[in-house]
């Protein structure tokens, strides 16, 4: 280095430059990977647009092939969320506000255990245990509530219905929603809670007045993240559901709509040629749907963080 100048720039060492560029490269690699997912799925999916109908399971073109699957995917995911959200909020409230503090942590671990169970084991359990146990319930539903189109039947004798799949999905999604909402419940300012209590609120009124309004955006994003998870869950649905790819709102019958992910898992291993491209194209649709849902969820989170900061 030459003699010191009046304005000294910090010396950029070679090691520093190499290291910082290395880390930036790694960060950019993630962006590239995400873009690559979209690009490669599109490349492999394109040939399916001109696929003959015998390669598309009898559907006339790609749209009529994918749309029933999209319907099934959305139906299963929404049902799962309808079941999971109240449960998850209840569990999160127990851990954050109802359980004695000494118990809260172990209870949280228990719920985390649910999240750790691999999806294929859920599928196994759903197929061998849940669906069998639910069969009498479906018969009962058809007999007593058959006038509601949802339970029109004829009731499945194996129990492998879209409702069973949704229940298993709900159990898998619940720990995710719980984990996020309980963190947000715990972040409620203690002063707000104590102020509500000091005004004579009961515990439920305190939660309604102080905790829930504070956590609203967090709950919304947690549910959307759960939705993203339920949309893409594969194995549990593939194993539990006895799918025939129809479009119906009948939840307890033998003929059930299939979901994109389950359809891929079931058909992919035995498919060749253009059929594979069609499956990849349906995967691209799933990717876009989940990407949009997750994007929206994260956007809600980011926005609420900004307004609170």
């Amino acid at each position, binding site marked *: 280095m030459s003699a010191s100048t009046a304005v000294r720039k910090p010396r950029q*060492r070679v*090691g*520093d430059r*190499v*290291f*910082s560029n290395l*880390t*930036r490269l*790694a*960060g950019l*690699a*993630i962006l590239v*990977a*995400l873009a*690559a*997912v979209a690009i*490669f*799925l599109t490349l*492999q999916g394109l040939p399916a647009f001109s696929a003959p109908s015998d390669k598309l399971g009898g559907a006339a073109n790609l749209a009529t092939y994918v749309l029933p699957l999209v319907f099934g995917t959305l139906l299963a995911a929404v049902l799962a969320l309808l079941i999971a959200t109240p*449960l*998850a909020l209840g*569990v999160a409230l*127990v851990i954050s506000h109802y359980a004695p503090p000494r118990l809260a942590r172990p209870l949280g671990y*228990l*719920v*985390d255990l649910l999240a*750790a*169970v*691999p*999806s*294929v*084991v859920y599928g*196994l*359990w759903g*197929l061998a245990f849940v669906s069998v146990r639910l069969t009498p319930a479906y018969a009962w539903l058809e007999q007593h509530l058959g006038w509601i189109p949802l339970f029109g039947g004829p009731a499945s004798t194996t129990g492998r219905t879209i409702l069973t799949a949704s229940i298993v999905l709900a159990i898998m999604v*619940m720990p995710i929603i719980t984990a996020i909402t309980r963190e947000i419940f715990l972040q409620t300012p203690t002063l707000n809670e*104590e102020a509500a*209590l000091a005004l004579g*609120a*009961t*515990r439920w*009124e305190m*939660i309604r007045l102080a905790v829930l309004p504070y956590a609203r955006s967090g709950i919304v994003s947690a549910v959307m*993240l759960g939705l993203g998870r339920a949309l*893409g869950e*594969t*194995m549990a649905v593939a*194993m539990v559901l006895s799918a025939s790819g129809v479009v119906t709102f009948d939840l307890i019958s033998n003929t059930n709509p299939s979901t994109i*992910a389950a359809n891929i898992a079931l058909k*992919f*291993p035995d498919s060749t*040629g253009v059929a*594979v491209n069609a499956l*990849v194209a349906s995967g691209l649709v*799933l*990717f876009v749907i*989940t990407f949009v*849902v*997750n994007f929206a969820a994260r956007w809600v*989170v980011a926005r609420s963080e900004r307004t609170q900061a």
Partner: protein
Amino acid sequence: MTGPLKSTPRATEATPMPRTTSAQTRFPQAPRPERGAGTGRHLSFGQPHLPWWAGWLVAAVSAAAAALLSLTLGWNIAGGAVVAVVLFAIALPTWSVLVESSRAAKDRLVTTLVWAAFAIALVPLVSLMYTVLANGLGVINGQFLTYSMRNVIGQGGGIYHAIIGTVLITLAATLISVPVGLLSAIYLVEYGVRNRTARTITFLVDVMTGIPSIVAGLFAYALFALFFGQGVRMGFGGAVALSLLMIPIVVRSCEEMLKLVPGDLREASYALGVPKWRTIVKVVLPTALPGIITGVTLAIARVIGETAPLLVIAGSTDSVNTNLFAERMMTLPVFIYYSFTQPGVPAQFGQDRAWGAALVLIVIVMALNLVARAIGRTFSPKTAR
């Protein structure tokens, strides 16, 4: 159970609070707090309260009523339990409305519902664990863990090939994910503070955590099909797919851990003239290391049970394959799937093997989780919270 104002100080008879006396002048009939009711649950403020044992009494009565009903009408245990909870949720608030107030009744109702939700959430956990243990425990023995399925029809055989495949593919996925994830986290925390690239990466990493696993598998297939032609099956493809799922988890956990390293440490290092990259490598990373190991272990536990991507790209086989770069490779989750859905004839043996493999997989995942938490707790710097 517990009523309102749980956190207010105890009112004992020895030190009556002035408020109590005024309440008693307003409500001459209001009883003095009884011994049971007064033991610290809440100030009564002159309002009548259910005794502390009200919840237990109602629970006992509704359980007895439900048991009686299910015995006479022939319901099973699940039906009886549901009826008991419903009875409890009706009876206790009703009693509360009659004695206390509608607000207290609503509080009790919500408390019941919230705990009921928690109990319902635990049912699947218990049931699943019990089912897997009951079905899988009898299958596991030395042969099951050390034999592959090569040339096995009917009884016998094991999951050795699947264990090997799972270990190799997960190891390869970890080798890809940890460097990329850790370096990205370093970039986000140390270099990219508040710049646009870093914010974009953070956001997209969050979005990436939601990529469905089957899409990751299709991506790996689409990528490798370009080089190796249609119908490619390869263990390394599975590793690529898994690392796509693993990288976001690693980035997030490493980021959190690096952020926990106190800035004072960095500044002390800079003050000694240590270059930034050496500060990161020699000061920041060692401090955050236990947390990073915890995060990586949890990420491994998360992806080791992934089935769908491996079903697509790694395929299934009955033989041991130790070469990641050629041919199909069996993994535990895929083994479970095929053994149960296509068990062969007779179905008994294949399905038994599926349960055994499921038990092994659950044990591996739980062990990884426990190890991760143990590392995190033992080595974590004692930060004040």
